[in-house]
């Protein structure tokens, strides 16, 4: 067993309490630990990604308890990709937050590390109940992060966020109980073996359990009609937190890919491809709602929020097809949309702080510091978010359109994607011209009293925007990687053998 696999969970789990206990009153020390821990996590996950890129599925049996009995972590290409993406985003966001946002409340860095622990655990775990536990860890931390900075709006929105996720957790437990009651196991690989063996009389219950799980993941992924919590929560959260939450909706997409390909996938007998009929319509509705939301937005933050909702819809369109090329397209778009979404939230904050009274509202305001630089970054992230050439949003959308073309209802789906993109284009063009051009037309010179130059903040956004640029430049290697990931995902046999086969090996070494 390679012990590095558990480091992405252990490292934040140790750093977070250390920050609370040792660096409680010293923001500078908290920042140092937060940034160093995130950078170390980035290094570890990059190593794990490299390790997983040989195509092997590596199980990690905690406490050396063999697979279906003990809790197991599994590193494969998909989990390694998600870990790396999370670590990159976390490092950028924590550096951005260290420019001042982490002073608006207490324990930002500790909560941030706990959130990382939950995310990494959720991506690594090979056990459905353990997935629930890590979901709770990341949710508990996210409640704290979402409320960071307090204020009436955050508290009222936070209340709704906590309430809907508590209801979601209850549903998760009902689903887990149902599935355990029918199969007698919660290990994902073991479930993949046992689900086809469920007798016909229990099939309806099994499908119910699977559908309940889908509802839970749809809440996490903010799919229509379960998206209602997202605009309020992300809009009210502090900008670095909202930017980091861009990965949270992807947790839903990851969980759907994992559970509905491995457990309720092709090998599940009568429960095969359980999620397929529900996901496509919900995804199309989400996409449309998000893009109409972009069109209707009156603040930059709301623009970012609805662009994120729309990107989830686009992503789920590809996920919902449940085949190999579609999953490859989905993964490419997932990486792209995480960077594009996060960049928009941080940009909204940079712009709002410079505009003083006008904030992030889309109204004409006097010119502000670093206008040209911010306008350029906004232009790039808008291109990425809308999906225009030459950035990776365009390539991702082309890939998704390509896989949708094989569907019987492809005309409708294409229309949804293309009309949605048009709406987003209009929304972003209007926002950009109001923010960066109208002010020049209104008043001649910048106000001298608000020259806020923060290089680190701009660099953070520039790194995030560089994501789609690099993804477009190196689209070939990136797609080779996502193709290989999708191929591995859609050969669950290898996963099952790696996890359950290790039971035999371990049993052999026992005295």
């Amino acid at each position, binding site marked *: 067993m390679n012990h590095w696999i558990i480091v992405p969970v252990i490292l934040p789990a140790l750093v977070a309490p250390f920050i609370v206990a040792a660096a409680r009153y010293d923001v500078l020390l908290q920042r140092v630990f937060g940034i160093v821990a995130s950078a170390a996590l980035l290094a570890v996950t990059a190593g794990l990604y490299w390790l997983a890129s040989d195509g092997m599925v590596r199980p990690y049996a905690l406490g050396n308890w063999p697979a279906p009995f003990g809790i197991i972590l599994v590193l494969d290409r998909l989990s390694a990709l998600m870990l790396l993406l999370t670590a990159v985003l976390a490092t950028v966001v924590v550096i951005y937050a260290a420019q001042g946002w982490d002073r608006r409340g207490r324990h930002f860095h500790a909560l941030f590390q706990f959130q990382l622990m939950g995310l990494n655990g959720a991506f690594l775990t090979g056990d459905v109940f353990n997935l629930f536990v890590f979901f709770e860890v990341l949710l508990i931390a996210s409640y704290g992060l979402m409320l960071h900075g307090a204020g009436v709006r955050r508290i009222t929105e936070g209340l709704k966020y906590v309430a809907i996720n*508590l*209801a979601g957790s209850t549903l998760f437990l009902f689903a887990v109980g149902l599935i355990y009651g029918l199969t007698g196991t919660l290990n994902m690989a073991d479930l993949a073996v046992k689900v086809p063996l469920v007798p016909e009389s229990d099939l309806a219950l099994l499908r119910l359990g699977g559908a309940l799980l889908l509802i839970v993941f749809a809440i996490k992924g903010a799919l229509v009609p379960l998206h209602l919590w997202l605009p309020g929560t992300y809009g009210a959260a502090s900008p670095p937190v909202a930017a980091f939450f861009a990965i949270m909706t992807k947790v839903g997409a990851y969980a759907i890919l994992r559970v509905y390909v491995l457990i309720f996938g092709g090998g599940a007998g009568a429960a095969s491809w359980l999620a397929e009929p529900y996901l496509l319509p919900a995804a199309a509705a989400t996409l449309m709602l998000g893009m109409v939301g972009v069109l209707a937005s009156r603040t930059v933050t709301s623009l970012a929020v609805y662009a994120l909702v729309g990107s989830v819809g686009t992503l789920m369109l590809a996920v919902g097809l449940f085949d190999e090329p579609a999953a490859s397209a989905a993964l490419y778009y997932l990486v792209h949309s995480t960077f594009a979404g996060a960049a928009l939230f941080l940009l909204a904050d940079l712009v709002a702080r410079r505009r003083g009274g006008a904030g992030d509202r889309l109204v004409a305001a006097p010119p502000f510091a670093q206008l040209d630089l911010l306008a350029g970054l906004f232009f790039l992230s808008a291109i990425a978010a809308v999906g225009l050439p030459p950035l990776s949003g365009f390539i991702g959308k082309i890939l998704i359109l390509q896989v949708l073309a094989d569907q019987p209802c492809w005309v409708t789906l294409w229309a949804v994607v293309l009309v949605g993109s048009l709406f987003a284009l209009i929304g972003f063009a209007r926002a950009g011209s109001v923010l960066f051009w109208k002010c020049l037309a209104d008043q001649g010179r910048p106000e001298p009293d608000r020259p806020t130059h923060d290089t680190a903040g701009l660099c953070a956004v520039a790194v995030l925007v560089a994501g789609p640029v690099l993804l477009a430049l190196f689209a070939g290697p990136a797609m080779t990687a996502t193709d290989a990931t999708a191929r591995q995902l859609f050969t669950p046999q290898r996963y099952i053998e790696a996890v359950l086969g290790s039971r035999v090996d371990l049993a052999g070494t026992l005295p």
Partner: protein
Amino acid sequence: MELLVASGVGVATAVGIYLVLRAQTFPVVLGLTFLSYAVNVYLFAMGRLVVGLPPIVSKTAQGYTDPLPQALVLTAIVISFGMTALLVVLALRGYLETGRDHVDGVAGTPEDVP
């Protein structure tokens, strides 16, 4: 016994759902508590209902009850208990800051309009 446990879970879930859909925070908190009680009993029952059997290996045992759901339920209880406490604190804080305990907070004031 099965009928009693099943209807207990059913009634608690129904009560929970009704209360969660109320507009004040206090009934919502109560409703979520009812839901978590219901799901805890339900998870427990998923190991099948037996009376007086040990969960741990012993030489004199006639049979066993499934220990796994008991472990799951323990985790679920801790998590839902902690979450409910957080929710209560949030609801209180929201009430103190807005003067109302409506779940939409200060709906209609300029701050909520984007």
